[in-house]
Protein backbone atom coordinates (compact mmCIF):
# COMPACT_ATOMS: atom_id res chain seq x y z
CA UNK A 1 0.00 0.00 0.00
CA UNK A 2 1.37 3.37 -1.02
CA UNK A 3 1.82 5.81 1.78
CA UNK A 4 2.13 9.57 1.73
CA UNK A 5 3.85 11.86 4.17
CA UNK A 6 1.28 14.31 5.43
CA UNK A 7 1.10 16.96 8.14
CA UNK A 8 -2.08 16.93 10.19
CA UNK A 9 -3.42 20.30 11.29
CA UNK A 10 -5.85 21.44 13.90
CA UNK A 11 -8.92 23.33 12.84
CA UNK A 12 -7.30 26.57 13.96
CA UNK A 13 -4.17 25.84 11.99
CA UNK A 14 -6.34 25.00 9.00
CA UNK A 15 -7.97 28.40 9.24
CA UNK A 16 -4.57 30.10 9.21
CA UNK A 17 -3.49 28.53 5.94
CA UNK A 18 -6.81 28.55 4.16
CA UNK A 19 -6.56 30.18 0.72
CA UNK A 20 -2.99 31.20 1.48
CA UNK A 21 0.07 30.94 -0.74
CA UNK A 22 3.05 29.05 0.68
CA UNK A 23 5.38 30.08 -2.15
CA UNK A 24 4.99 32.29 -5.23
CA UNK A 25 2.06 31.06 -7.33
CA UNK A 26 1.60 28.02 -5.10
CA UNK A 27 -1.31 27.69 -2.70
CA UNK A 28 -2.05 25.36 0.17
CA UNK A 29 -4.64 22.77 -0.63
CA UNK A 30 -5.75 21.04 2.58
CA UNK A 31 -7.60 17.78 2.23
CA UNK A 32 -9.33 15.55 4.71
CA UNK A 33 -8.38 12.11 5.86
CA UNK A 34 -11.09 9.54 6.17
CA UNK A 35 -11.02 10.32 9.88
CA UNK A 36 -11.88 13.92 9.05
CA UNK A 37 -8.46 15.24 9.90
CA UNK A 38 -7.22 18.30 8.03
CA UNK A 39 -4.00 17.48 6.19
CA UNK A 40 -1.49 19.08 3.89
CA UNK A 41 1.33 17.34 2.06
CA UNK A 42 4.98 17.30 2.98
CA UNK A 43 5.76 18.90 -0.37
CA UNK A 44 3.79 21.96 0.64
CA UNK A 45 5.57 22.17 3.99
CA UNK A 46 9.02 21.63 2.50
CA UNK A 47 8.43 24.22 -0.22
CA UNK A 48 6.95 26.78 2.16
CA UNK A 49 9.01 29.95 1.91
CA UNK A 50 6.91 32.39 3.87
CA UNK A 51 8.10 33.28 7.32
CA UNK A 52 4.60 33.42 8.70
CA UNK A 53 4.11 29.72 7.97
CA UNK A 54 7.46 28.40 9.11
CA UNK A 55 5.74 26.92 12.14
CA UNK A 56 4.46 24.24 9.79
CA UNK A 57 7.97 22.82 9.56
CA UNK A 58 7.85 22.05 13.28
CA UNK A 59 4.85 19.79 12.93
CA UNK A 60 5.45 16.07 12.54
CA UNK A 61 5.06 14.37 9.20
CA UNK A 62 2.96 11.28 9.38
CA UNK A 63 2.68 8.39 6.98
CA UNK A 64 -0.87 8.16 5.72
CA UNK A 65 -2.11 5.47 3.40
CA UNK A 66 -2.84 6.94 0.00
CA UNK A 67 -6.30 5.47 0.13
CA UNK A 68 -6.98 7.36 3.34
CA UNK A 69 -6.22 10.67 1.67
CA UNK A 70 -9.02 10.55 -0.82
CA UNK A 71 -11.77 8.17 -1.82
CA UNK A 72 -10.42 5.05 -3.37
CA UNK A 73 -12.97 4.95 -6.11
CA UNK A 74 -11.18 2.31 -8.13
CA UNK A 75 -12.99 -0.38 -6.20
CA UNK A 76 -16.08 1.46 -5.13
CA UNK A 77 -19.58 1.52 -6.47
CA UNK A 78 -19.06 5.11 -7.49
CA UNK A 79 -17.78 4.07 -10.87
CA UNK A 80 -20.73 3.97 -13.15
CA UNK A 81 -20.45 2.20 -16.42
CA UNK A 82 -16.70 2.09 -15.84
CA UNK A 83 -16.76 5.83 -15.79
CA UNK A 84 -14.33 6.97 -13.10
CA UNK A 85 -15.93 10.36 -12.73
CA UNK A 86 -16.39 11.48 -9.21
CA UNK A 87 -17.44 14.64 -7.53
CA UNK A 88 -16.40 15.39 -4.02
CA UNK A 89 -17.37 18.57 -2.27
CA UNK A 90 -15.61 19.26 0.94
CA UNK A 91 -15.57 21.94 3.54
CA UNK A 92 -12.67 21.11 5.72
CA UNK A 93 -13.45 23.75 8.28
CA UNK A 94 -16.90 22.40 8.83
CA UNK A 95 -15.40 18.93 8.38
CA UNK A 96 -18.01 17.94 5.92
CA UNK A 97 -17.70 15.89 2.78
CA UNK A 98 -20.17 14.93 0.14
CA UNK A 99 -19.44 12.57 -2.67
CA UNK A 100 -21.51 12.19 -5.76
CA UNK A 101 -20.97 10.45 -9.03
CA UNK A 102 -21.70 11.50 -12.52
CA UNK A 103 -24.89 10.33 -14.17
CA UNK A 104 -27.30 11.58 -16.75
CA UNK A 105 -28.65 14.19 -14.43
CA UNK A 106 -26.97 17.39 -13.42
CA UNK A 107 -24.72 17.62 -10.44
CA UNK A 108 -27.20 19.58 -8.37
CA UNK A 109 -29.84 16.92 -8.72
CA UNK A 110 -27.40 14.23 -7.71
CA UNK A 111 -26.36 16.06 -4.62
CA UNK A 112 -29.89 16.88 -3.65
CA UNK A 113 -30.72 13.21 -3.96
CA UNK A 114 -27.81 12.27 -1.80
CA UNK A 115 -28.91 14.57 0.96
CA UNK A 116 -31.82 12.28 1.46
CA UNK A 117 -29.41 9.44 2.02
CA UNK A 118 -27.71 7.87 -0.94
CA UNK A 119 -24.42 6.10 -1.48
CA UNK A 120 -21.66 7.64 0.53
CA UNK A 121 -18.19 6.85 1.69
CA UNK A 122 -19.38 6.75 5.27
CA UNK A 123 -18.84 10.28 6.42
CA UNK A 124 -21.38 12.36 4.68
CA UNK A 125 -22.93 15.57 5.77
CA UNK A 126 -26.57 16.48 5.46
CA UNK A 127 -26.45 20.21 5.09
CA UNK A 128 -28.41 21.15 2.03
CA UNK A 129 -27.76 24.86 2.11
CA UNK A 130 -24.04 24.44 2.44
CA UNK A 131 -23.83 21.95 -0.36
CA UNK A 132 -25.83 24.08 -2.72
CA UNK A 133 -23.78 27.08 -1.73
CA UNK A 134 -20.59 25.21 -2.54
CA UNK A 135 -21.97 24.06 -5.81
CA UNK A 136 -22.82 27.54 -6.94
CA UNK A 137 -19.59 29.11 -5.79
Amino acid at each position, binding site marked *: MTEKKMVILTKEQGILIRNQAFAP*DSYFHPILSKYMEIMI*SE*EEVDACQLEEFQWLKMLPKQSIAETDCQPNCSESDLIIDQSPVLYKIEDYLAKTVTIAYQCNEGRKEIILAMIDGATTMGYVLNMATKIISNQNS
Partner: protein
Amino acid sequence: MAINWGLIVMRSIGIISSSRRWRYQPEVYPFMEAIGMPNSDLIYHEGTTYERSGKQFWTQINELIINWKTALGLPLDFKNLYSRLPLVYPTIGGTATSHKYNLSDPSKFVATFFGGWTHDGSGAQPNGTNAYMTTTTGLFVNMGYSMESATFGFDSKTDANGLYLDLRATDGARPNIILYARNSGSAYSQFDYSLANSIDAVPDSLGLYMLNRVNANLFEVIKENAVIGSHSKTCGHEISSGVLNGAGYSGGQYSPRKRTLTFGASKSQGNIGGFTPTERTDFTNHWRNFDNSLNR
Protein backbone atom coordinates in the same frame (compact mmCIF):
# COMPACT_ATOMS: atom_id res chain seq x y z
CA MET B 1 28.46 69.60 -21.17
CA ALA B 2 29.62 66.42 -22.87
CA ILE B 3 27.03 64.62 -24.98
CA ASN B 4 26.78 60.88 -24.63
CA TRP B 5 26.11 60.10 -28.29
CA GLY B 6 26.25 56.38 -27.67
CA LEU B 7 23.44 56.57 -25.15
CA ILE B 8 21.35 58.73 -27.43
CA VAL B 9 21.80 56.30 -30.32
CA MET B 10 20.92 53.35 -28.11
CA ARG B 11 17.77 55.09 -26.95
CA SER B 12 16.78 56.14 -30.45
CA ILE B 13 17.01 52.60 -31.84
CA GLY B 14 15.25 51.13 -28.87
CA ILE B 15 18.12 49.26 -27.28
CA ILE B 16 17.68 51.26 -24.12
CA SER B 17 14.76 53.31 -23.02
CA SER B 18 14.94 56.77 -21.59
CA SER B 19 14.37 55.27 -18.15
CA ARG B 20 17.40 53.05 -18.66
CA ARG B 21 15.31 49.97 -18.99
CA TRP B 22 16.36 47.49 -21.61
CA ARG B 23 13.89 46.32 -24.15
CA TYR B 24 13.56 42.66 -25.02
CA GLN B 25 11.41 40.20 -26.84
CA PRO B 26 7.92 40.25 -25.26
CA GLU B 27 8.45 36.78 -23.87
CA VAL B 28 11.40 37.99 -21.86
CA TYR B 29 9.39 40.08 -19.44
CA PRO B 30 7.37 37.28 -17.85
CA PHE B 31 10.59 35.33 -17.50
CA MET B 32 12.23 38.26 -15.77
CA GLU B 33 9.30 38.43 -13.44
CA ALA B 34 9.54 34.69 -12.93
CA ILE B 35 13.09 34.84 -11.73
CA GLY B 36 12.49 38.00 -9.72
CA MET B 37 14.73 40.26 -11.75
CA PRO B 38 13.61 43.87 -12.17
CA ASN B 39 14.35 45.47 -15.50
CA SER B 40 15.81 48.59 -14.02
CA ASP B 41 19.09 50.19 -13.14
CA LEU B 42 19.09 47.98 -10.09
CA ILE B 43 20.63 45.49 -12.48
CA TYR B 44 22.03 47.72 -15.16
CA HIS B 45 24.37 50.26 -13.66
CA GLU B 46 25.67 52.33 -16.50
CA GLY B 47 29.26 53.33 -16.21
CA THR B 48 30.00 51.01 -13.35
CA THR B 49 31.64 47.65 -13.09
CA TYR B 50 28.18 46.14 -13.21
CA GLU B 51 27.42 47.52 -16.64
CA ARG B 52 29.13 44.84 -18.62
CA SER B 53 27.95 41.92 -16.58
CA GLY B 54 24.47 43.31 -16.55
CA LYS B 55 24.39 43.70 -20.30
CA GLN B 56 25.77 40.25 -20.83
CA PHE B 57 23.29 38.78 -18.41
CA TRP B 58 20.34 40.34 -20.14
CA THR B 59 21.68 39.51 -23.55
CA GLN B 60 21.96 35.90 -22.56
CA ILE B 61 18.41 35.80 -21.22
CA ASN B 62 17.16 37.49 -24.34
CA GLU B 63 18.90 34.93 -26.51
CA LEU B 64 17.62 32.12 -24.35
CA ILE B 65 14.04 33.27 -24.73
CA ILE B 66 14.50 33.78 -28.46
CA ASN B 67 15.94 30.29 -28.72
CA TRP B 68 12.91 28.87 -26.97
CA LYS B 69 10.64 30.85 -29.21
CA THR B 70 12.60 29.69 -32.23
CA ALA B 71 12.68 26.09 -31.10
CA LEU B 72 9.01 25.77 -30.32
CA GLY B 73 7.01 28.80 -31.34
CA LEU B 74 8.34 29.47 -34.81
CA PRO B 75 8.06 25.91 -36.13
CA LEU B 76 4.52 25.79 -34.84
CA ASP B 77 3.82 29.16 -36.37
CA PHE B 78 5.31 28.00 -39.65
CA LYS B 79 2.84 25.12 -39.64
CA ASN B 80 0.00 27.52 -38.83
CA LEU B 81 -0.39 25.85 -35.47
CA TYR B 82 0.74 28.54 -33.08
CA SER B 83 -2.41 30.61 -33.45
CA ARG B 84 -4.42 27.44 -32.90
CA LEU B 85 -3.01 26.96 -29.42
CA PRO B 86 -4.62 29.24 -26.88
CA LEU B 87 -3.18 27.14 -24.05
CA VAL B 88 0.44 26.00 -23.94
CA TYR B 89 2.20 25.35 -20.65
CA PRO B 90 5.68 24.05 -21.50
CA THR B 91 6.87 24.18 -17.85
CA ILE B 92 10.15 25.90 -18.52
CA GLY B 93 12.19 27.57 -15.82
CA GLY B 94 12.01 25.24 -12.86
CA THR B 95 9.69 27.21 -10.57
CA ALA B 96 5.95 27.50 -10.10
CA THR B 97 6.17 31.10 -11.17
CA SER B 98 7.87 30.29 -14.46
CA HIS B 99 5.70 27.23 -15.04
CA LYS B 100 2.49 29.22 -14.69
CA TYR B 101 2.93 31.10 -17.94
CA ASN B 102 0.99 30.29 -21.05
CA LEU B 103 3.44 30.38 -23.92
CA SER B 104 0.71 31.32 -26.36
CA ASP B 105 0.05 34.52 -24.46
CA PRO B 106 1.75 34.97 -21.09
CA SER B 107 -0.86 37.52 -20.07
CA LYS B 108 -3.79 35.11 -20.44
CA PHE B 109 -4.77 31.84 -18.83
CA VAL B 110 -2.03 32.10 -16.26
CA ALA B 111 -1.96 28.88 -14.25
CA THR B 112 -2.09 28.52 -10.48
CA PHE B 113 -0.73 25.57 -8.56
CA PHE B 114 -2.44 24.12 -5.52
CA GLY B 115 -1.13 21.54 -3.10
CA GLY B 116 2.18 19.72 -3.26
CA TRP B 117 4.09 20.14 -6.50
CA THR B 118 7.76 19.65 -7.17
CA HIS B 119 9.00 22.12 -9.73
CA ASP B 120 12.41 21.77 -11.30
CA GLY B 121 14.20 22.13 -14.59
CA SER B 122 12.77 18.87 -15.88
CA GLY B 123 9.11 19.79 -15.42
CA ALA B 124 6.45 19.84 -12.75
CA GLN B 125 5.42 16.83 -10.73
CA PRO B 126 2.25 16.72 -8.62
CA ASN B 127 2.36 14.57 -5.52
CA GLY B 128 -0.69 12.50 -6.35
CA THR B 129 -2.26 13.40 -3.02
CA ASN B 130 -3.61 16.92 -3.17
CA ALA B 131 -1.84 18.70 -6.04
CA TYR B 132 -3.52 20.15 -9.08
CA MET B 133 -3.18 23.13 -11.39
CA THR B 134 -5.85 25.32 -12.85
CA THR B 135 -5.81 27.81 -15.65
CA THR B 136 -7.86 30.14 -13.42
CA THR B 137 -9.84 31.44 -16.39
CA GLY B 138 -12.54 29.68 -18.34
CA LEU B 139 -11.42 27.97 -21.49
CA PHE B 140 -13.99 29.05 -23.97
CA VAL B 141 -15.99 31.75 -22.29
CA ASN B 142 -15.28 34.99 -24.11
CA MET B 143 -12.55 33.34 -26.14
CA GLY B 144 -14.44 32.49 -29.27
CA TYR B 145 -12.97 29.01 -29.46
CA SER B 146 -14.94 25.89 -30.07
CA MET B 147 -14.85 22.46 -28.52
CA GLU B 148 -15.93 21.15 -31.89
CA SER B 149 -12.43 21.82 -33.19
CA ALA B 150 -10.49 21.25 -30.00
CA THR B 151 -7.47 19.18 -29.13
CA PHE B 152 -6.23 18.78 -25.56
CA GLY B 153 -3.31 16.96 -24.12
CA PHE B 154 -0.33 16.67 -21.85
CA ASP B 155 3.12 15.13 -21.93
CA SER B 156 3.59 12.55 -19.20
CA LYS B 157 7.00 11.66 -17.84
CA THR B 158 5.79 9.19 -15.22
CA ASP B 159 4.61 5.67 -15.74
CA ALA B 160 1.97 4.98 -13.12
CA ASN B 161 -1.01 2.68 -13.26
CA GLY B 162 -3.94 3.97 -11.25
CA LEU B 163 -7.07 6.05 -11.21
CA TYR B 164 -5.26 9.34 -11.60
CA LEU B 165 -6.96 12.22 -13.33
CA ASP B 166 -4.56 14.02 -15.62
CA LEU B 167 -6.75 16.47 -17.49
CA ARG B 168 -10.20 17.83 -16.80
CA ALA B 169 -12.51 20.69 -17.63
CA THR B 170 -16.19 21.00 -16.95
CA ASP B 171 -19.16 22.96 -18.05
CA GLY B 172 -20.63 23.42 -14.62
CA ALA B 173 -21.78 19.95 -13.66
CA ARG B 174 -20.79 18.38 -16.93
CA PRO B 175 -17.24 17.25 -17.59
CA ASN B 176 -16.19 18.14 -21.10
CA ILE B 177 -12.63 16.89 -21.00
CA ILE B 178 -11.42 13.99 -18.93
CA LEU B 179 -8.26 12.00 -19.32
CA TYR B 180 -6.84 9.27 -17.13
CA ALA B 181 -3.59 8.34 -18.82
CA ARG B 182 -3.56 4.80 -17.47
CA ASN B 183 -5.91 2.97 -15.15
CA SER B 184 -5.86 -0.82 -15.05
CA GLY B 185 -3.84 -0.81 -18.23
CA SER B 186 -6.11 1.48 -20.21
CA ALA B 187 -6.42 5.17 -20.91
CA TYR B 188 -9.85 6.49 -19.92
CA SER B 189 -11.08 9.59 -21.62
CA GLN B 190 -14.13 11.64 -22.36
CA PHE B 191 -14.40 14.53 -24.73
CA ASP B 192 -17.61 16.42 -24.31
CA TYR B 193 -20.23 15.43 -21.79
CA SER B 194 -20.64 11.71 -21.97
CA LEU B 195 -21.23 8.82 -19.63
CA ALA B 196 -19.26 6.47 -21.79
CA ASN B 197 -15.50 6.59 -21.85
CA SER B 198 -13.16 5.74 -24.56
CA ILE B 199 -11.23 2.92 -22.89
CA ASP B 200 -8.07 2.16 -24.79
CA ALA B 201 -5.28 -0.21 -23.86
CA VAL B 202 -1.92 1.43 -23.24
CA PRO B 203 1.36 -0.23 -22.25
CA ASP B 204 2.38 2.63 -20.00
CA SER B 205 1.46 6.21 -19.17
CA LEU B 206 4.41 7.87 -20.84
CA GLY B 207 4.41 10.27 -23.74
CA LEU B 208 2.33 12.97 -25.33
CA TYR B 209 -1.38 12.26 -24.91
CA MET B 210 -4.02 14.01 -27.00
CA LEU B 211 -7.78 14.02 -27.11
CA ASN B 212 -8.60 15.20 -30.58
CA ARG B 213 -11.99 16.06 -32.06
CA VAL B 214 -12.03 14.39 -35.48
CA ASN B 215 -15.44 15.65 -36.49
CA ALA B 216 -18.73 16.58 -34.88
CA ASN B 217 -19.43 12.95 -34.01
CA LEU B 218 -16.09 11.40 -33.22
CA PHE B 219 -13.03 11.99 -31.09
CA GLU B 220 -9.82 10.05 -30.98
CA VAL B 221 -7.27 9.29 -28.31
CA ILE B 222 -3.63 9.64 -29.27
CA LYS B 223 -0.48 8.65 -27.47
CA GLU B 224 2.84 9.84 -28.86
CA ASN B 225 1.26 10.41 -32.25
CA ALA B 226 -0.28 6.93 -32.45
CA VAL B 227 -4.06 6.70 -32.47
CA ILE B 228 -4.88 4.24 -29.70
CA GLY B 229 -8.65 4.56 -29.84
CA SER B 230 -11.65 6.58 -30.83
CA HIS B 231 -15.12 7.12 -29.53
CA SER B 232 -18.37 8.31 -31.06
CA LYS B 233 -19.76 11.33 -29.30
CA THR B 234 -21.60 14.23 -30.78
CA CYS B 235 -20.60 17.70 -29.68
CA GLY B 236 -23.05 19.33 -27.37
CA HIS B 237 -23.20 22.03 -24.76
CA GLU B 238 -19.53 22.73 -24.30
CA ILE B 239 -19.17 26.38 -25.11
CA SER B 240 -19.15 27.49 -21.49
CA SER B 241 -16.41 25.10 -20.45
CA GLY B 242 -14.61 26.25 -17.36
CA VAL B 243 -10.99 26.19 -16.30
CA LEU B 244 -8.64 23.48 -17.43
CA ASN B 245 -7.37 21.42 -14.51
CA GLY B 246 -4.24 19.35 -14.69
CA ALA B 247 -3.22 16.50 -12.38
CA GLY B 248 -6.54 16.29 -10.61
CA TYR B 249 -8.88 18.86 -9.24
CA SER B 250 -10.13 20.14 -5.96
CA GLY B 251 -11.95 17.15 -4.68
CA GLY B 252 -9.97 14.05 -5.46
CA GLN B 253 -8.31 11.75 -7.99
CA TYR B 254 -4.96 13.51 -8.01
CA SER B 255 -2.33 12.43 -10.47
CA PRO B 256 1.34 11.83 -9.62
CA ARG B 257 2.44 12.02 -13.23
CA LYS B 258 5.20 14.47 -13.94
CA ARG B 259 4.48 16.66 -16.92
CA THR B 260 6.38 18.96 -19.22
CA LEU B 261 3.44 20.15 -21.28
CA THR B 262 -0.24 20.82 -20.89
CA PHE B 263 -1.96 22.27 -23.90
CA GLY B 264 -5.27 23.06 -25.53
CA ALA B 265 -5.83 23.81 -29.21
CA SER B 266 -8.91 25.02 -31.00
CA LYS B 267 -10.25 26.98 -33.92
CA SER B 268 -12.83 29.70 -33.89
CA GLN B 269 -16.47 28.78 -33.50
CA GLY B 270 -18.08 27.37 -36.60
CA ASN B 271 -15.12 25.16 -37.45
CA ILE B 272 -15.37 21.41 -37.07
CA GLY B 273 -12.44 19.15 -36.38
CA GLY B 274 -9.23 19.50 -34.39
CA PHE B 275 -5.76 18.53 -35.54
CA THR B 276 -5.52 16.79 -38.86
CA PRO B 277 -3.10 13.84 -38.94
CA THR B 278 -0.50 16.11 -40.51
CA GLU B 279 -1.00 18.80 -37.89
CA ARG B 280 -0.87 16.23 -35.13
CA THR B 281 2.39 14.85 -36.47
CA ASP B 282 3.86 18.32 -36.85
CA PHE B 283 2.87 19.31 -33.35
CA THR B 284 4.17 16.09 -31.84
CA ASN B 285 7.47 16.29 -33.66
CA HIS B 286 8.05 19.94 -32.83
CA TRP B 287 7.17 19.45 -29.22
CA ARG B 288 9.30 16.35 -28.90
CA ASN B 289 12.28 18.05 -30.52
CA PHE B 290 11.88 21.02 -28.22
CA ASP B 291 11.44 18.92 -25.12
CA ASN B 292 14.40 16.74 -25.99
CA SER B 293 16.53 19.82 -26.54
CA LEU B 294 16.02 20.59 -22.87
CA ASN B 295 17.20 17.11 -21.92
CA ARG B 296 14.13 16.21 -19.99
